[in-house]
């Protein structure tokens, strides 16, 4: 890896200040994507500002249906939080299948969302849950946050501090992992928010990152069953294609994973 300067921020203000001071600074949380990228010399920030030690950045608050998760909360903590599991088991289950146990101990929800890897799991959850991404500057609706592969609405120096959402009445996430990397080749998060408000978000498959599957949402609003979406095809034109599966295969997987998610959500 290239030279870099490591800083540990103890407050958001200090983090912002350090960011401004650096030539080409980057925020780091669990570092489970950024550090490997730096090791491969594909990223070379002059300064790394560690957000994990900022007070109030981690932890899960559940009050009624309202859920707030601090950005520095690890995947492991999300996967094992009893209160969260009680109101939104689908998200806890999703977190329990990100990476592997050691990665889950370090990786954070804020880091994953800020990176917006097209094969990451959390972006699908945020979209389907209609979550709000809270930053040190503002609140951003998930629908306006994810802007395509590795692109988000975050401005330079902006820090995600938490995500917040109202727990759906039922939800499930089912993914088909890439056999080699175990990232999602196709992951579908289905959430029923009641009164026909259904959200279906797909990660891993689309060639422009995570997306909402409107046709499926519409069909499920009338009839929340796997059968209702069985014949809804996804255009292969919008799908990724690589050595692990071509666009046609991924388009097919979207339907299979969506049906399984609906069935699992019950």
């Amino acid at each position: 890896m290239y030279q870099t300067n490591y800083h540990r921020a103890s407050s958001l203000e200090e983090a912002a200040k350090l960011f401004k001071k650096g030539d080409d600074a980057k925020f780091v949380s669990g570092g489970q994507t950024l550090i490997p990228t730096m090791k491969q010399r594909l990223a070379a920030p002059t300064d790394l500002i560690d957000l994990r030690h900022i007070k109030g950045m981690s932890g899960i608050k559940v009050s009624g249906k309202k859920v707030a998760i601090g950005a520095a909360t690890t995947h492991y903590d999300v996967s094992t939080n009893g209160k969260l599991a009680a109101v939104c088991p689908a998200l806890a289950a999703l977190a329990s299948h990100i990476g592997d146990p050691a990665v889950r101990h370090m990786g954070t929800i804020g880091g994953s969302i800020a990176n917006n890897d097209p094969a990451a799991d959390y972006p699908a959850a945020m979209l389907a849950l209609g979550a709000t991404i809270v930053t040190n500057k503002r609140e951003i609706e998930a629908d306006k946050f994810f802007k395509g592969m590795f692109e988000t609405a975050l401005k330079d120096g902006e820090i995600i501090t938490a995500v917040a959402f109202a727990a759906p009445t039922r939800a499930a996430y089912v993914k088909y992992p890439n056999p080699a990397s175990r990232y999602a080749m196709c992951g579908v998060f289905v959430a029923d928010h009641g009164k026909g408000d259904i959200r279906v978000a797909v990660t891993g498959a689309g060639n422009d990152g995570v997306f909402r599957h409107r046709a499926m949402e519409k069909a499920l609003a009338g009839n929340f069953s796997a059968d209702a979406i069985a014949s809804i095809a996804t255009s292969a034109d919008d799908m990724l294609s690589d050595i692990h599966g071509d666009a046609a295969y991924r388009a097919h997987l979207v339907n299979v994973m969506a049906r399984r998610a609906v069935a699992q959500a019950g």
Partner: protein
Amino acid sequence: MGMEGIGARVLRKEDQRFITGKGHYTDDFKMAGMHYAAFVRSPHAHAKIGKINKSAAEKMPGVVAVLDGKQLTGDGIGNLICGWMIHSKDGSPMNMGAWSALATEFVRYVGDGVAVVIADSPDNARTGAEAVEVDYKVLPHVTEAVVAMGSGAPQLHPEAKNNIIYDWEIGDKEAAEKAIAGSAHVTEMEIINNRLVPNPMEPRAALASYDSAQDHFTLYTTSQNPHVARLVLSAFYQVAPEHKLRVIAPDVGGGFGSKIYIYPEEIVCLWASKKTGVPVKWTSDRTEAFLADAHGRDHVTKARMGFDKDGRITGFSVDTVANLGAYMSLFSSSVPTYLYATLLSGQYNITNIHCNVRTVYTNTAPVDAYRGAGRPEATYLVERMMETAAREMGMDRAELRRKNFVTEFPHQTPVIMCYDAGDYGATLDAALKASDWAGFEKRKAAAARKGKLRGIGLSCYIEACGIAPSAAVGSLGAGVGLWESAEVRVNPVGTIEILTGSHSHGQGHETTFAQLVSERFGLPTDNVQIVHGDTDKVQFGMGTYGSRSGAVGMSAITKALDKVEAKAKKIAAHLLEADAGDIVIENGEVKVAGTDKKLGWHEVCLAAYTGHNLPAGMEPGLKEGAFYDPTNFTFPAGAYVCEVEVDPDTGKTEVVQFVAADDFGTIINPMIVEGQVHGGITQGIGQAMLEGAIYDGNGQLVTASYMDYCMPRADDVPSYQVSHHVTECPGNPLGMKGCGEAGAIGSPPALINAITDAIGNNNLTMPATPARVWAALNGK
């Protein structure tokens, strides 16, 4: 025999250091003043090298030297060679192109080394390497063998017209064709054996130092055969004469063939250590390993097998094109010839076989032996053909095989090999029984109710191990003999050191070799130390590969133990005033049979060293050496049954049962043998449904990390049912056949036969990824 003799499940002596983090692998060693090497590697599949501008790199922090190929060849370092001469069928020798440890004029694959940077830290060396500016004139490239031999393909080496290295054949073409023409049924297939990357978990590494005061080199390296490394480094690459070079292969983290060869990096580190005056360490990262370790397999084969109306095989015709990559690696030429085509008779009685093999240069990493080496390719071909033939003829798959089994030994095949012993019916019966083959239809119906497609597949494999009789391999073109050496040093207190030319990198030799002593003298294995992997300690040896350390390495130890035992008996007879023929050694005691006269083993050993009272004319001491040259190959064989469930929605295959019934001859330690089978099967499952090295249209290796190269993980495979059925090998003193490669040889066809059975489509190429299985299911 004691509790720790032959056949005992003795726990491994080597484990203590590994489970406590005290192993010593090459990268763990440090030397005073040590610097680090980073290689400048070609980003192009094929290019002419222009000017190399080093000045920016030389000014980078910590950089002490930037060295290139012209300097290397200018210092007289020789080209890398392939040590097995193959002649084409027209009698001409193989067309070997030049391979310099650092490229001088052309780069021929992505990852080909162009220069090396030596710096004070690995990061600084890497940054320095990035600053080396190389002018490349990019040339057209070709990565597929079949394309490379076609007209108009880019040419890699002037020596090899149409990129063909040799066009070789074995067997009687006319007889095979005639037999097939007269057959009641002919099965015809095109079979691809996918390119694999061996991936031992320890990446390759080298630490070289030059002592100018002694004019002497030391090399720590990740090698399966340090003596062969020293020989080749001395005799061919002229790095240093043998007596001025010590090669140490300490703990080595797996090899699977890929650490047999002497690679450019070791040569460069040795050369650079003298040139710069500092010890030089290079440790491969995983992506470098993907790019520059020797790959395995990569065959395209067209084959026809004829049968008479009763299902007896009449003839077998095989035409194989093998991709050897950009350069000929050390033993590359032997893999698709004598390690492949000689096994095409399988377990079957086939009178007429003909096989033609063309090997081809392409702009890809060099290809050489990987676990099984040639034998997995042969087994996959034969067992896919047999399975397909049974389906086509509507015959029972097991019975078709049984009908054609060789049942009388010795059996001379038409492709060199003479099978010495085996009982193929016994392993087939055992596998069918253990897998409840008869109950499969019920399980298939149950799976169908869950929406899963269940399939079962069989494979009956044979391999040739214990490589090999030196005179025989010499006559076939090998540049070395394939014997093994051993020295047994008995200490005055009766403990024993065994020096062996075999090298353990996971096989557990420190335990199994000690068990031979336990068997012989009744001593605990704790009283035995195995010494290996250091050319200063062990005089010579050929190393470990080809499942040879039992059948060849242990035979050498056995021979040396014979000599030790004979001398010890003479000493004891003299001391006990008995006849040497009446002396027996058991449970650590040396006794006169039928009497109560005895001495402790340690007393006899001490007497040997005090020399106070030895038989007249006997030299003091108790130390014997032996070289063992095998009399034949050995022929491990067995039957594997694999059962799968395929999810028709995703194409994902789950291996739900895997049964292995093997005949390895005598087994020293069943625990270790089972472990070898488990690991081998997993690599075979990897080949069949997970792993494949893929070069894209630009000649870039797409699968250059674990993000894209699918390594088998714990949840990809089941637990295995393994059993052993022994027919002793008559060719060596212990009756051993070898067990290291069988799992990787027998398992791929069993798995593919199971998946194709499940999906009802025989047109499936390895690796049978979910996407491919789904496509096959949907006729795509």
